[in-house]
């Protein structure tokens, strides 16, 4: 039930709402990508926008990711605020040169003569039996690039507020949307019934305009014994592992990887003295490595145990073995027990 000034929304509906709010407030916001116009996107995140704002504001693009991002950069250089969808994060590689060498550097190389206020959305992560080309989590390929901001919402409230902030930001922002969370929070127990967002407080989304500043983490579950640094799909996995082990973990949902809320990270680890880093992406050279490096640099003397990483295996995302690949509550629980026993 919607209360005054809020609505129960799925993450998809919240993203749709964010688009509409941004487009309503600023006529330079345009939305395009494969299937996003008439059909409203394969995940329906842009449904209704073309009908409401017209074909010049929301339209279909040819299947050419480099073209989508490249054209968006040109539009941004003209003075618009394009928000484009890459159908799956796995499909962004043809656009990588445009993202890395162009969008991220336009302001720098022209010393501010041009800039690219551009938002690039893409569904990320596994959990839907998508196999190796519909399941990847390439956030580290963006966080490693100077000049890009990278955010990963984990719930409808954040998805809306972060997307509006991304669109309004004057720098290029990559928004990775965990597709397994589109329709409900997911704790990693894939064999249990799906819980809808309508049964979760983070599905109660404020109406109208609000922006969540990029670079502010959120304490998802307060705790005293160990800090879990995570983002996206695994936020709810960490929460489940804490409940199931009885270990009082503080789950930090980073929300924004670049810029990173280092203060929140350091404050929590300093308080708990233990830390587990959790993400779905492959482990080696993943964003978790950056987090571990920062934790040891800024909170080494508070640590009572080695910092552990829980992540996807360093293999492509397999199809049949999806749930042996996904870092579920059991793997997180083992890590929590391990750091508590050190």
């Amino acid at each position: 039930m919607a209360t005054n000034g809020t609505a129960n929304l799925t993450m998809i509906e919240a993203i749709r709402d964010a688009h509409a709010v941004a487009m309503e407030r600023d006529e330079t916001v345009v939305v395009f990508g494969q299937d996003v116009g008439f059909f409203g996107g394969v995940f329906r995140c842009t449904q209704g926008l073309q009908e409401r704002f017209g074909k010049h504001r929301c339209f279909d693009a040819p299947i050419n990711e480099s073209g989508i991002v490249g054209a968006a950069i040109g539009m941004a250089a003209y003075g618009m605020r394009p928000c484009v969808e890459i159908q799956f994060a796995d499909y962004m590689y043809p656009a990588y040169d445009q993202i890395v060498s162009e969008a991220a550097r336009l302001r720098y190389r022209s010393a501010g003569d041009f800039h690219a206020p551009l938002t690039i959305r893409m569904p990320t992560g596994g959990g839907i039996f998508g196999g190796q080309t519909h399941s990847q989590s390439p956030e580290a390929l963006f966080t490693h690039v100077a000049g890009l901001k990278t955010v990963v919402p984990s719930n409808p409230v954040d998805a809306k507020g972060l997307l509006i902030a991304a669109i309004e930001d004057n720098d290029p922002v990559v928004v990775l949307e965990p597709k397994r969370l589109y329709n409900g929070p997911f704790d990693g127990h894939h064999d249990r019934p799906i819980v809808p967002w309508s049964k979760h407080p983070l599905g109660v989304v404020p109406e109208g305009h609000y922006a969540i500043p990029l670079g502010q983490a959120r304490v998802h579950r307060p705790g005293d014994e160990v800090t879990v640094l995570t983002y996206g799909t695994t936020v709810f996995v960490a929460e489940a592992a804490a409940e199931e082990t009885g270990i009082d973990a503080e789950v930090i949902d980073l929300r924004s990887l670049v810029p990173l809320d280092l203060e929140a990270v350091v404050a929590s680890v300093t308080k708990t003295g233990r830390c587990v880093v959790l993400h779905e992406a492959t482990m080696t050279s993943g964003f978790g490595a950056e987090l571990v490096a920062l934790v040891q640099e800024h909170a080494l003397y508070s640590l009572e145990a080695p910092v552990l990483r829980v992540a996807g295996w360093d293999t492509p995302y397999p199809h049949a073995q999806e749930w042996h690949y996904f870092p579920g509550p059991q793997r997180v629980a083992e890590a929590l027990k391990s750091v508590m026993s050190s």
Partner: protein
Amino acid sequence: MGDAGVDAAAELSTPRFVVPEPGYRHGERIGFDDLALTAAGEVRRPDPDTDAESIRDLAFALIRVLDEDGTAVGPWAGTLSDDELVAGLRDMLLVRAFDARMLRSQRQGKTSFYIQSLGEEAVACAHRRAQRAGDMNFPTYRQQGLLIASDYPLVAMINQIYSNRDDPMKGHQLPVMYSSRQHGFFTVSGNLATQFVQAVGWAMAAAISGSDHVASAWIGDGATAESDYHAGMVFASTYRPPVVLNVVNNQWAISTFQGLARGGAGTFAARGLGFGIASLRVDGNDYLAVHAVSQWAIERARQGLGPTLIEWVTYRVGAHSTSDDPSAYRPNEEVAAWPLGDPVARLRDHLIGQGVWSKESHDEAVSEVDAAVRDAESEAEAHGTLRSDDAASPALIFEDLFENLTPHLHRQRQQLGY
């Protein structure tokens, strides 16, 4: 059928792998046999609202205005007055003098790198004079003529090339990668073809915004092989925005002859036909032809008639860059054998034939542009050079990455000591 027929049949029955080669190498007979020249004045000038389908032949012809005697002939003649042509000649002379001076500066160690446009000055200079304020170029690194023909200050260009304390790019960019929104010159990237589809996007935005601004995309013959060239063509074909798609075919991509990127296509202009884009092939060393066709294409775009692809046939007389030695891959005699001549000499001779120019006035103009470049160079050098104490400050490393410095960059800047 003789033996040759049997051999041909045997050859056709075998799968082939072809690596295209230029028609000659060092010591062999030089000839641009496959250039497909058309005599000046012969190619018709369709109305700008002609549909692409009915002018397919123009992708294989060569639009030329100046004939062998320097006389302007045919339907594309007459877009510029003699005074405007004199101004155009000065633009080209200035570019040439600027290039010569900057090559010397690079050899003197005042900068790391330079790229000249010797022999192809007409393409950028004449195109720029066909544009209006508010139009935007998405150039490569060899379109300095666009900036110079829009009266961008030479001192600012040299400040950029020298990466000195007054460098408008704050030392962030390789020499010649200028940027000036005000002068319709999008920031040059340095990697290839990315700007081609960006220009299409800019034109899409211009049209969506209801303006009458026109974008000009620029790319070289070699870079048309890149995926982003094709992305640009697809988007231009799909959305029909106001963009002029310029392919500067200067015959060489470093050591790679144009046939390697062109492959089986008859001409680079012909590539546009499958996309349903109006496509023309033009003598890029003919200032009058460049201006006339640019004006035609820009007019088309401004009237909402969609994109135009233009192949400018020209010749890269100099090395690719100061890091290149073309004598290693093409015979030195090729320059003299180039059949479309020198754009400066051709326009000069035309103006002399018109009775508005002379050898004396030409020499005087050359002295004037040399002096202008010399003065600008002295002024810029006073602001520092790359290896001097007045090079762009290390404090600028962290500027203009994001709109506002993020906390982690702030920490890194402090570590650097600024």
